[in-house]
């Protein structure tokens, strides 16, 4: 929120010392209360949130590309309408998240800059290509399924605007996952070629989906502090295990095999055991050497640059309109009446 404060000294000055402010912040976190935009917060808390929310927003925006790849080739009008709605949702999720990040005092333009120049990252899952139509199903089922497991605890994140954005996102993700599952189910029960295509897509997306939860707890740079601040409610490994437990039985219903010979139900732990993850692949994709890293960013930058004239035109139009209003030009009176009645309705 870009709101103005009335009659208050800036945080950190006046009567309240930094220690007072920090104690109040700590008490808020301890009470499981929410931190709101105008609250004092430690610089590192703010920086952590900006990094995480921006990365999350970037992931949604970049995530439009692999699926957008199939919009013009969807096999039926129904599937095309669904995919269009889903890709539009991903844009929406990105925008909810950018709006939440902006409440922490960063500019939208600066965040986009950081994405375009590689200063901030997006989820490495979107650096994999969508080779067949079945990939659209695998993304919905596995990638969005993993995202849901990650995001549900974030609806209780200590930072209010992020938590509220996550509530909206989670409601919408559930449609994403179901459409993917339904798509795969149709293929899995189709012709032998369709079955093979579905299995192949799952074979390629399964391991990258497990990597979406981030490095193992033994090697996670951000987990302990984020947990103390209640930004993060569960560790990477806990969430990964939850995802495997939820997903393995769903694969059985599909009649699709998950590509892990070590995957099996463990009656003692009451969880699924699964094989080791190839973290060298994760590191390589993160470092920029995934199949589509350069393509994703160059496409994103091109879209941004191609839109520059639209943004300039909108700004010029608004400026001209304001100038006309201020000089009281006769031809604008109809517009003024309109905006006055809008105000009346709002009051």
């Amino acid at each position, binding site marked *: *929120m870009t*709101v103005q404060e*009335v009659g208050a000294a800036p945080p950190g000055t006046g009567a309240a010392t930094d220690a007072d402010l920090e104690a109040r912040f700590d008490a808020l976190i301890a009470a499981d209360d929410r931190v709101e935009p105008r609250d004092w917060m430690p610089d590192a808390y703010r920086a952590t949130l900006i990094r995480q929310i921006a990365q999350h927003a970037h992931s949604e925006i970049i995530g439009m590309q692999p699926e957008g790849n199939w919009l013009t080739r969807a096999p039926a009008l129904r599937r095309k309408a669904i995919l269009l709605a889903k890709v539009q949702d991903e844009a929406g999720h990105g925008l*909810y998240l950018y709006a939440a990040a902006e409440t922490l005092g960063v500019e939208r333009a600066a965040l986009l800059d950081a994405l375009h120049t590689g200063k901030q990252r997006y989820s490495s899952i979107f650096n994999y290509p969508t080779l067949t139509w079945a990939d659209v199903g695998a993304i919905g089922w596995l990638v969005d399924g993993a995202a849901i497991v990650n995001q549900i605890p974030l609806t209780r994140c200590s930072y209010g605007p992020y938590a509220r954005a996550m509530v909206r996102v989670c409601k919408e993700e559930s449609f994403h996952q179901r459409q993917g599952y339904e798509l795969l189910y149709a293929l899995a029960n189709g012709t032998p070629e369709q079955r093979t295509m579905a299995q192949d897509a799952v074979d390629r997306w399964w391991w990258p989906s497990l990597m979406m939860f981030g490095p193992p707890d033994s090697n996670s740079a951000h987990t302990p502090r984020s947990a103390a601040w209640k930004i993060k409610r569960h560790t990477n490994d806990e969430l990964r295990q939850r995802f495997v437990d939820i997903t393995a039985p769903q694969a059985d219903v599909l009649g699709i095999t998950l590509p892990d010979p070590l995957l099996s139900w463990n009656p003692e732990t009451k969880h699924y055991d699964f094989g080791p993850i190839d973290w060298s692949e994760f590191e390589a994709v993160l470092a920029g050497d995934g199949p589509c890293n350069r393509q994703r960013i160059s496409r994103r930058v091109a879209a941004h640059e191609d839109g520059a004239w639209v943004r300039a035109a909108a700004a010029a139009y*608004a400026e001209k309109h304001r100038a006309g209003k201020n000089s009281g030009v006769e031809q604008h009176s109809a517009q003024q009446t309109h905006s006055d009645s809008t105000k009346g309705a709002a009051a």
Partner: protein
Amino acid sequence: MSETAATGSPVWEVFVRPRRGLSHQHVGSVHADDAEVALRRARDLYTRRGEGVSIWVVPGAAISASSPDEKDPYFAPAGDKTYRHPTFYRLPEGVRNL
């Protein structure tokens, strides 16, 4: 409020009335150069599933807010006036509908 080409169009805070009979609630923000575009973007972003029957957009810079960080809390005057609540009052046994 930032309006230069370098920082992009200004922020508008968005308020949605979920249905008739309820008041508008803050749901988030959009960027736009004027109110008309802000309304359209707010519709596309915050009401894709029929979440609202009416939208307000307000320039972020036009909102004034109390500060949560004042040492003497802005809302303290309400704190010691418990007699403003009906639960403050003891009622005699047997009295009804009061």
